[in-house]
């Protein structure tokens, strides 16, 4: 039993340590470690967790870690997964803050991170394609996807509003389908 908690902690510590950017940058690593390697969640569940993470308190990376840990091993699992995901930050940032104040100004760091961003960009693209295949399954879901993407890129609309609107759209679309069938 003890090992499963340790496994949860170490897995999420690895995920935290390999996240470069916001919560979205965590997605490719999550898919590999949690969905493909360990089967702790499905692609669809990841989409669900991100949607809920967008409109609940706290940063998305923590929300998603808590969700998966909690699904696996209850409340304690949720807490341990979250401790895992924050652990690398605590160590690395503390070291940098203590010894390397000019870290972000170093030329080598700048070049390395410009490179990493290109890598992250491609990995996130692949991750989105995987989720897209599971979530966009017909014309209405295609329209919801396109609208949310365009609105988020070009307008400054709160994700909370988008998530609520999409949920209502889901009820209406599926509800009318049922009614038509009857």
């Amino acid at each position, binding site marked *: 039993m003890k090992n499963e908690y340790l496994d949860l902690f170490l897995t999420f510590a690895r995920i*935290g340590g*390999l*996240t*470069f950017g916001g*919560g979205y940058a965590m997605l490719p690593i999550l898919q590999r470690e949690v969905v493909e390697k360990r089967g702790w969640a499905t692609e*669809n569940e990841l989409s*669900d967790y*991100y*949607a809920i993470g*967008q*409109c*609940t*308190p*706290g*940063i*998305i*990376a*923590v*929300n998603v870690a*808590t969700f998966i840990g*909690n*699904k696996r091993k209850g409340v304690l699992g*949720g807490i341990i997964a*979250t401790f895992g*995901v924050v652990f690398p*930050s*605590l160590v*690395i*940032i*503390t070291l940098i803050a203590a010894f390397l104040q000019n870290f*972000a100004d170093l030329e*080598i*760091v*700048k070049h*390395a991170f*410009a*490179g990493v961003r290109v*890598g*992250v*960009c*491609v*990995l*996130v*693209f692949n991750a*989105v394609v995987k*989720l897209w295949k599971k*979530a966009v399954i017909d014309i209405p879901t295609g329209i*919801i*996807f396109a609208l*949310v993407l365009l609105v988020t890129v070009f307008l400054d609309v709160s*994700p909370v509003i*988008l998530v609520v*609107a*999409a*949920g*209502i759209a*889901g*009820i209406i*679309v*599926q509800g009318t389908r049922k009614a038509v069938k009857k």
Partner: protein
Amino acid sequence: MIYLQLFYEFFKTGLFAVGGGLATLPFLYSMSDKTGWFTYGQLADMVAISESTPGPIGINMATYVGFTTAGIPGSIIATLGLVAPAIVVIIIVAGFLKKFQNNQYVQNVFYGLRPASVGMIAAAFVSVLTMSVIRLDLFQISGVWTDLFSIPGILLAAVVYVLTNKTKWHPAFFLLGSAIVGIIFQF
């Protein structure tokens, strides 16, 4: 008691900052105004470092501010404060979901939520795209069209794309490889 105050301030941030890590920024600015623990200039440095180190940006920020304010205990307490509300809320939400996961209405809601969620992540992809492969950030400063496309960036992206789809290598390998290419070719 600085630790208690630190926990309280970050608990508030964790409770009211909704969304990605940069959603914590406005709260950190007001924390700076209110407490004087750090200046706006220090905050800007912290953002730069949080963006160029492993770990989700929001966590990195909390750890950094906590450390600057009250050393190593400060970094731990600030981070705990930030994640505490999220843990509580998500565990409650997850409980509800489990109970109602077979409810038709809940399933219909998720039918609409999933594509919206993917749309928002796709939008995050667009914003990384305009800072990495396509350099909208450089173009906006210089106004020179050739700055918009970074040839080495496009080549690296193409190689990573092909390899990620042809091999089963771990994403960590591609991140490390991209960093090395970035250093060698002075991205």
